């Protein structure tokens, strides 16, 4: 039986060393701490330099997205999903569109599926590149890796801007397809961005993979066992770094992912270094998927012609749809009562659920490791707090 890592009542705590309980120090890391990626607080109890207890405090960005969506039409919530994980708005759109399509039984045309895969994988590239940059920044490599990542991300955001009109809040998917077709010249521009990406990855790998300081700071730090990862519902690159062979693109065969050849990188140690490496390798696979998708994309409609935009009322029922978002399993659970707005609208936030094990990873480590561990989990507070 697996239970919480430590008791909640401070008087039950056992210090790690011979220090008496009076010498335990409780500090609040955050909400305004540069390493917390937004407004997030960890109440850390320290015995000297070592973490004895760590309780995360959520909710600084809570606006009850789910309640708002219940009084909004189905389509009206689409732009709001952009604001969940604001680094990867397109995959949020995709997960929501997929859930509604399951709920109402809508078919997606071939070209739209390709557009979804292309934009979704571009989103994954820029998310992983940024995450590695943030992680390095948190660990004190001031500037260089983050700026390299942002240079590449900017090229991808330029593509998003010319396709959707917005760099980050793309609002690109529609039920049964996508909102806009490719502008002329877009595909060539995207092909050149993707063709240049492996060069950036080579550069990044040369800079980081065998960097001694990085290895010292990250190897055997924040080790997550395979059993705990499965039990705690950890998904995405974080679970795969612990050796859990579970990629929803391979398991659910949603969209058209079974048409592309790609591998799922797995880690064997489950430490911060493996989480970093898995993301680096995943970017290579995404580049492969993008090359195949951009080669094969057919002509055709980009939205199901039978789909009504106005007066959309799914028949009563419920559906849970999920995709492999860059952060992990992003799911939407919808209940329709036949009215124009959902009776229940639930977001399954990978960022929040991946934080379940934060305390387990940090207890016994020192404060500087907490920063690296949190950085490797990859959270966006817009999604954690909703």
């Amino acid at each position: 039986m697996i239970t919480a890592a430590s008791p909640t009542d401070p008087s039950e705590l056992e210090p790690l060393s011979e220090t008496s309980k009076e010498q335990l120090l409780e500090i609040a890391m955050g909400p305004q701490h540069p390493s917390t990626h937004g407004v997030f607080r960890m109440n850390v109890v320290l015995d000297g330099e070592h973490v004895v207890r760590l309780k995360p405090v959520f909710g600084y960005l809570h606006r009850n997205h789910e309640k708002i969506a219940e009084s909004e039409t189905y389509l009206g919530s689409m732009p709001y999903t952009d604001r969940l994980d604001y680094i990867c708005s397109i995959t949020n759109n995709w997960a929501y569109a997929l859930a509604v399509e399951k709920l109402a039984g809508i078919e997606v045309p071939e070209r739209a599926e390709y557009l979804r895969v292309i934009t979704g994988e571009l989103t994954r590239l820029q998310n992983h590149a940024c995450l590695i940059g943030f992680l390095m920044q948190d660990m004190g490599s001031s500037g260089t890796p983050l700026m390299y990542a942002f240079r590449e991300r900017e090229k991808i955001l330029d593509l998003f801007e010319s396709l959707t009109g917005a760099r980050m809040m793309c609002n690109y998917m529609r039920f049964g397809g996508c909102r806009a077709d490719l502008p002329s010249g877009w595909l060539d521009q995207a092909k050149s961005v993707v063709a240049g990406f492996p060069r950036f990855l080579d550069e990044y790998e040369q800079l980081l993979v065998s960097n001694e300081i990085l290895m010292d700071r990250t190897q055997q730090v924040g080790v997550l066992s395979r059993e705990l990862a499965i039990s705690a519902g950890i998904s995405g690159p974080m679970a795969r770094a612990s050796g859990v062979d579970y990629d929803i693109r391979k398991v659910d065969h949603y969209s058209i992912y079974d048409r592309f050849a790609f591998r799922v990188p797995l880690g064997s140690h489950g430490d911060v270094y493996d989480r970093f490496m898995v993301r680096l390798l995943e970017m290579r696979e995404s580049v492969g998927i993008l090359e195949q998708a951009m080669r094969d994309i057919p002509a055709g409609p980009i939205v199901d012609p039978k789909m009504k935009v106005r007066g959309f009322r799914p028949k009563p029922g419920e559906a849970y749809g999920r995709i492999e978002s860059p952060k992990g399993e992003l799911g939407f659970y919808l209940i329709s009562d036949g009215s124009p707005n959902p009776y229940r609208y639930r977001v399954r936030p990978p960022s929040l659920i991946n934080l379940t094990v934060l305390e387990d990873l940090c207890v016994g480590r020192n404060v500087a490791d907490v920063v690296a561990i949190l950085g490797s989990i990859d959270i966006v507070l817009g999604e954690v707090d909703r």
Partner: protein
Amino acid sequence: MNLEAIKSELEAAVPGCRLELVANPSPSGQHSLRIDAAHAVALALYLRDAPGLRFDFCSNITGIDWPGKQTTEKVKLRKLIDGIEQDIEELRTTTSPGSLEVVYHLYSVKKKHGPLVLRSSTQDRDANVHLPSLTPVWRSAELQEREIFDLFGVVFDGHPDLRRLLLWDEFQDHPMRRDYVEPDDFEYEPTAHDEVLRRANQHLSEAGGKLQSQGGGR
């Protein structure tokens, strides 16, 4: 993955459990299994560990609020009115207690199947809102059950650390319930009038003051 087969397997494995198939008319075809609260932990353990099922990954847990429905019916009565016995019809309104429902979406990492949808309901929405916590079975329930406790007010017995997750500890009420009313924010409403003015005065009279209308009354 056949839900009927899982149901009969569970009934054989956990004696005395009451299971019910809940059909889902949507094209998604995700039908669900209603489990009874008393056997929830035993059922969950069996689903997790049985070699043919192995639902080791509890992906999503969420709450749904089903408020009580008001039903009005006509009742025929004989009553003495002005000394004469008469047949009259009377309208009677009854309110069903409603319930809070918790839904679990289970997958299997080992066997790569799912989702299996489980549902479990509380008896009503006021006093009997207890359900057993499944955190000892799947650790992923820890934060999600705290969120349901916070936003819906379901109390999970056996949860190791049941506190509010997103709202602060002093917060009253549960915002995801359908009948939730937002608290008045009179600082945000500088020119109170009509209904807002009435509620502001009610609010302020408890604090010993009174607000004048700043609208067209002057």
